[in-house]
């Protein structure tokens, strides 16, 4: 239970960073932290006490494997995080080239 809460605290730190920080790179970092927290949560959910990794061995029968599905899902989720980060960094580099700053308060030609 307490590990779930720690994991959600990590999620909230990321959320706080995205909502409050004014620097584009910091926002990207915040999104990364959110991503980590959710991946960790998924794997925590599938953990089994005294479990073994879900890989079969030749010479022994393993009965207490951890849940393999979250691991498969998290593999997908890690790659999604990488893809989003790469795209955001590319956009950030272009923004820096156009505006000469990473500060989001100075980048305001559009009104929301």
């Amino acid at each position, binding site marked *: 239970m307490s590990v779930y809460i720690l994991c959600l605290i990590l*999620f909230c730190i990321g*959320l706080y960073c*995205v909502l409050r920080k004014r620097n*584009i790179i910091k*926002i990207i970092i915040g*999104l990364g932290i*959110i*991503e980590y927290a*959710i991946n960790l*949560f*998924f794997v925590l*959910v599938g953990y089994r006490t005294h479990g073994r990794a879900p890989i079969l061995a030749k010479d022994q029968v393993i009965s207490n494997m951890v*849940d393999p*599905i*979250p691991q498969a*899902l998290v593999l*997908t*989720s890690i790659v*999604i995080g990488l*893809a*989003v980060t790469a*795209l*955001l960094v590319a*956009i*950030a580099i*272009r*923004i820096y080239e*156009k*505006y000469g700053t990473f500060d989001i308060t100075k*980048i305001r*030609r*559009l009104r*929301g």
Partner: protein
Amino acid sequence: MKILPFFVIIPLSAAFLISLLGKKIKNFGDIIANLGTLSLLILSLNSVQLANAHKILVYKMGNWVPPIGICMVLDGLTSFMLVTVNLVSFLVAIYSISYMERYTDKYRFYTLFMLLLAGMNGIIVTGDLFNLFVFLEIASIASYALVAFGTEAEELEASFKYAVMGSVASSFILLAIALLYSYTSTLNMADISLVLSQKGRGMLINLVAILFLAGFGLKAALVPFHAWLPDAHPSAPAPISAMLSGVFIKVLGVYALCRVFFNILGVSSAISFALIILSIISMVVGAFLAIAQQDIKRMFAYSSISQIGYIIFAFGIGSPLAILGGLFHLFNHAVFKSLLFLNSGAIEYSTGTRDLKKLGGLNSQLPVTGYTGLLGSMSISGIPPFGGFWSKLIIIIAAIQAGYFLSAGVAILVSIVTLAYYLKFQSHTFFGKLNETRLKVKEVPLAMSLSMIILAIICVIAGFLLIPIFRPFLQNAVNVLLLGKGYKDAVFGAIR
């Protein structure tokens, strides 16, 4: 039944082929993209017949029985959404042939466009919750890149804002899926619904519902979450604005919301209350902000927020008539909003500006754009006998039947405001005095006019979807949502 995977295979292979060969062969992107979208349109029309004949069809991926493998589900709602998406995307693809000549690297545009389409089709046909998330991300990432396609400063800024908001929404959805997985230990939608009906609802399901509402609400741009839309949609190239406003927010927001709430979690009274409140605020705020805009595309973007409010409002009421009206309005809005965005693109293509103050009297110079724009505006502001009138009428009648008198009054009022700002659009753009410098402005190329004309015709005849011959198209979709948690029985029945 074999056709289901092709809704994903065709756009994906088109995207891969275009990125491989598009640079070498001239016009390769145009040909492949148009052939791909045309075949998808034909397949989706075929799927309507199948859905009508069989009610529900399940395709087992790799021959694994659903809780183990991933399945695709074809039912009335699926075929309805498929027709909407693929119709609009086909016409937009025709339009892009000429319009995208203004941009460099056209083949990259087509690659991203087909990926966007693959993502949306994948969301619609899937029957697995995590798979829905994966395809949602494909569509979202493609749209982030497409918004920044012009690589001007404003476009990059809008794209960044949109990408951050979209990623936060995706992470909410993923967290909700993680919670739901740990509670039910399965990912198939029908199976989740089955387990939930055995275990009952608690605080956890409320948390999951809130997370889904926030996530899909962000994707659908309901009002507290709408800040990205008025920047992102106008910044994209006009065909992509049409896709984003026309179908993208409906598939990622409205369709996914409906599927999750109606068929998996079940709609509680708190949820429908929340939906109604959010949608009323969306309607009012979107409409009043739209009046103040001077940029044509920004006005349309705010108008999208307002119209999405109508659709969600109908689903919040939840009676059969309201759902019929909501789905019908969804179809109508997809048609006329993409038409209007294509019109704004045509105006920008010919005159080089989209500022209302600098335009005027274009009706003589751009007759096709002018008249199709007039039809679109009349339809969206609810003038009979266009499609938009009937769908709004149905929603308002349903609201009165269900006893939401105040909300119905607000809906009527917003409809009048809508008429006001589309009158402003018409009078500032197509009527009035022509600017001297624009005497040489010519009508847009054939491909662009053609797709606008077809969309305008659909706008006019959309009302016929309510007559008995075409009625099953809408009615099957309504039945799926009315089925509610009976969805799981239908899916498991179809597997056996």
